[in-house]
């Protein structure tokens, strides 16, 4: 993406010394950042940053013999592409037991999609109510929800697991019965939802409370109830915030190993890609061409999600609604 800098209009009135100095400072900075040297620097940084990933991709496309005999950069001189690595890592049953990566990829999606949608659904409703429905203590509730963000999730792993498998009791009195969900998708979804809600409510609340109040009032006068205002006005206008949280949450869940491993109970039925990949580094430690293929697969999905949702980051979605 390229951005063009609009030319600075020359001021019609003569500027005072200080103002002129400030304007020229701004110009200086702007010029410094758009200078060829700065651009070159950015290009170099970008290339350096991308090289490891590129090496990963190249290695995954090479044959086993090539990968073992020389470095990936020789590929650039003698290109010889094969997709066999992908085929074997995804579908072959031949290594380490437990089959190829494909079922785990499906598992990962089965974890990620609900673990992203559930928090969005709950948090957007909570944020709307906290931001726009006037009731006593709403600020306090919001504060408490966000304060939960302070609790590190590692601290709650064991208590939560106990709750899932044993319920909650005081003496012989049962507060929560056994949920029987340890080792299922439900446990993983629930946990991810819980861990993400504070941040999600915070982000969406802050965005929603910035919506112009007159638009909400106009909807009220037009005859919309709270639910309708949420659905027809607030939700569409909050898409940039929802999309950014969605990307954030999806990538975090996709890359997560700890939560899935803890609450999935190590069962291959619910294990995500990350869990399987970390096992493979042990069993396939020497098979670089396969590991890199697996690694690249795990990058591709978040990238697709990112580029698909990126277009919702529209700036100026509110343009034209209210003046001033």
């Amino acid at each position, binding site marked *: 993406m390229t951005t063009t800098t609009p030319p600075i209009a020359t001021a019609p009135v003569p500027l005072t010394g200080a103002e002129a100095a400030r304007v020229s400072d701004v110009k200086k900075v702007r010029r410094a950042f758009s200078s060829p040297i700065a651009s070159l620097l950015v290009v170099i940084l970008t290339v350096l940053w991308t090289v490891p990933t590129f090496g990963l991709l190249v290695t995954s496309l090479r044959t086993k013999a090539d990968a073992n005999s020389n470095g990936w950069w020789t590929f650039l001189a003698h290109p010889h592409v094969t997709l066999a690595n992908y085929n074997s890592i995804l579908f072959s049953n031949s290594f380490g037991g437990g089959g190829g990566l494909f079922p785990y990829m499906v598992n990962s999606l089965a974890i990620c999609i609900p673990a992203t949608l559930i928090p969005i659904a709950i948090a957007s409703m909570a944020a709307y109510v906290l931001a726009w429905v006037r009731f006593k203590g709403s600020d306090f509730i919001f504060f408490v929800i966000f304060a939960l963000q302070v609790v590190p999730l590692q601290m709650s792993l064991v208590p939560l697991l106990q709750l899932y498998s044993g319920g909650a009791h005081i003496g012989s009195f049962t507060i929560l019965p056994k949920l029987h969900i340890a080792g299922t998708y439900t446990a993983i979804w629930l946990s991810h939802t819980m861990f993400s809600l504070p941040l999600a409510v915070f982000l969406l609340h802050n965005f929603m409370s910035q919506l*112009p109040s*007159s*638009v909400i*009032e*106009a*909807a*009220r*006068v*037009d*005859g*919309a*109830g709270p639910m*309708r205002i949420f659905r*027809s*006005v607030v939700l*569409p*206008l909050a898409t940039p915030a929802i999309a950014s949280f969605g990307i954030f949450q999806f990538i975090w869940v996709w890359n997560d190993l700890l939560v899935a491993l803890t609450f999935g109970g190590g069962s291959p039925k619910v294990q995500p890609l990350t869990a399987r990949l970390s096992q493979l580094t042990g069993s396939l430690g020497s098979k670089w061409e396969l590991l890199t293929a697996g690694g690249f697969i795990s990058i591709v999905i978040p990238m697709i999600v990112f580029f698909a949702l990126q277009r919702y980051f529209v700036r*100026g*979605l*509110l*343009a*034209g*609604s*209210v*003046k*001033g």
Partner: protein
Amino acid sequence: MADVRYINATCLYEGNPVPAINSLNLEIGDGEFMVLVGPSGSGKSTALRMLAGLEPVSTGEIDIGGVNVSNRAPKDRDIAMVFQNYALYPHMSVAENMGFALKLKGVPKEERDRKVVEAAKLLDLEKYLDRKPKALSGGQRQRVAMGRAIVREPSVFLMDEPLSNLDAKLRVETRANIANLQARLGTTTVYVTHDQVEAMTMGNRVAVLKDGVLQQVDTPRNLYDRPTNAFVAAFIGSPAMNLRQAKLVDDGAVLGAVTLPLPRPVLEAAKGLSTITLGMRPEAFTISSDETGLALDVKLVEELGADAYVYGTLSGDSPEERPFVIRAGGAAPPRIGDLIHISILVGQEHAFHPDTGERLG
């Protein structure tokens, strides 16, 4: 079609002992164009929002069409509101914006479209029905906001300074359009503005508010000719009325070197007072050719073409007194620094109580 009545309506905000609106009594007839006007903080918008159901009616009640609506939700009041900043739904097209209320009411799509197109024709918006608000100019957005209200055919229109975001020329045009439209539709309208010119030109009647208290409700002519107190006198009219303290003598009031005869009812009402507040409109003066009358030291002349407004200090004014302004003919106005003599036209003065500001006589 309905009339609106505020009966001792009061709006108290939590934690603030001073009511935003203090026991307002106001009757707005069916089909009337009522303008609420006042300086900022006078509670005029609050009064409107109480009628809309966006602010609570703490005590008293508000009736629309004879029904007490004080505790009803906005959507159950059969009103439509035009907001100061238009408050269009930015993610909907013009047609969707205008049809939103009908859609919520469950009006079938065909009828909805017909009504939207009808209203769009009325407002010259047909070409823009598919556009989003951001692709419209300020004036067009304002018309969409109007259209959104018209489409609903409500019993009362509420308008909260709908013209304040337009440029001066467009404002004058739109002002006339809104007044025409209202006359054609015959819908009861409550219109809030801080601009007294708007108030005078648009309203059948004008209600002047100050600090949450209704000062006077009357036709624009009567407000101008017989303001009920010094506040209304100074607020209505542009430039504002000149107010000066004057010593009371047997048959009139003494201002500078001039004794102004006052009519009998005024003198009777002022019995017992030693001074009164004298109000004089800028156009109530003639410039004398000789050196009789009030002496005015000219500090500023605003030439408007047909007229010129002359600002200055009267001899005997204290320095912090507001400048005295008179209207002079545009052809040969006085110049800055001149000392001119002016005399007031008989019967054009207004007398107010010096402490309460109430009209005398």
